[in-house]
């Protein structure tokens, strides 16, 4: 297993029992797309579509790999390493 830190904010934490930060063991050799699918199947109990469609994160969610926009790091194809911190941030629209 690989040990990673998962962060959820902007309301996504409600999908994982209100936890904003989780230290989590995940299967080895996952891509980030694979991680998204794994979270959807293993951590999220209901309203899965608010998180992703399979390995595709839903629009309106920023994904950070160690604090950097995943767009700069290969997005779903990024290979997870032990110790990585992956943040899922739902953007807000209220005012």
């Amino acid at each position, binding site marked *: 297993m690989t040990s990673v830190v998962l962060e959820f904010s902007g*309301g996504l934490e409600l999908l994982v029992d209100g936890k904003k930060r989780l230290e989590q063991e995940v299967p080895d050799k996952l891509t980030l797309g694979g991680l998204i699918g794994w979270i959807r199947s293993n951590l999220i109990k209901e309203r899965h*579509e608010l998180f992703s469609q399979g390995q595709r994160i839903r*629009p*309106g969610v*920023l994904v950070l790999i160690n604090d950097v926009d995943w767009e*700069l790091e290969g997005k779903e194809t990024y290979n997870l390493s032990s110790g990585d911190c992956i943040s899922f941030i739902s953007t807000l*629209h209220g*005012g």
Partner: protein
Amino acid sequence: ENGVRQAFSNDVLERYSRQMLLLRFGVEGQKRLSQKSVLVIGAGGLGCPAAMYLASAGVGRLGLLDRGDSVDRSNLHRQIGHTDASVGADKCLSLRDSLMRINPGSSICTLSTGITAKFALQLILPFDIVLDCTDNVESRYIISDACAALRKPLVSGSAIGFEGQLSVYCDSEESPCYRCIFPSPPPPDCVGSCDTAGVLGPVPGVIGTMQAVEALKLAAEIEGAEVCSRRMVLYDGLSCETRVIRLRSRSKTCRACGNPEDSSQRIVNPAEFDYGSFTLAGSCATPQSTDQ
């Protein structure tokens, strides 16, 4: 010294003295600020403090644009630019009254039509800087697309619950627009609002006030200032955590500010784009587009 006295009256010198004292701001910064115009879209929890600090600081011309709502008592726990006596009054006019009480010399124009795709370019064109203080996805895309088309710097804030976010778009050649970061809209049922999910009053206050800081840096062209572009401030009031995350640069294929491969996809004028269908298409039941 004589030049200063010629440019500004004594009242003005006194009123703005504490920011003119700032080395990087000075008299020249005040002059630049007094020649700039800022459009605040949304007279609510974000727009109230943003407009109050901008009017206080002496922005040359301030535009207030709201969709014609009247002040509701449920606004008052967070929208500190309105008063109990103004419940039922037009929000733009109510906020304008508060701004005039603080700085009677302000030049303020109000428009209660809201931002619409049809008139977005005309509404934004006369202003140097735009603040997105709205509360819905459709307005955010319309405003950003118009700012991208006109290359107007856009200071965007949002808040709900205990959380707030801030970013600046379109302020330089490298800066992304909102659509660069969010090419697809969120599913409508993923979007909360302060009226349904609730919000702690000073949380949009923190973000709206930060929007005023960013707008003042742009308007006064403060030396050495770095605005929050290609970055986003995240504020979580519940845990008192803040962070600033790095975002991607402008996308070459962005439909609003880039050159998409299929040039018919380019949004030249929001008036020609169907925002209703676009934001509905994000529905969770619909297959996602491939660009996010």
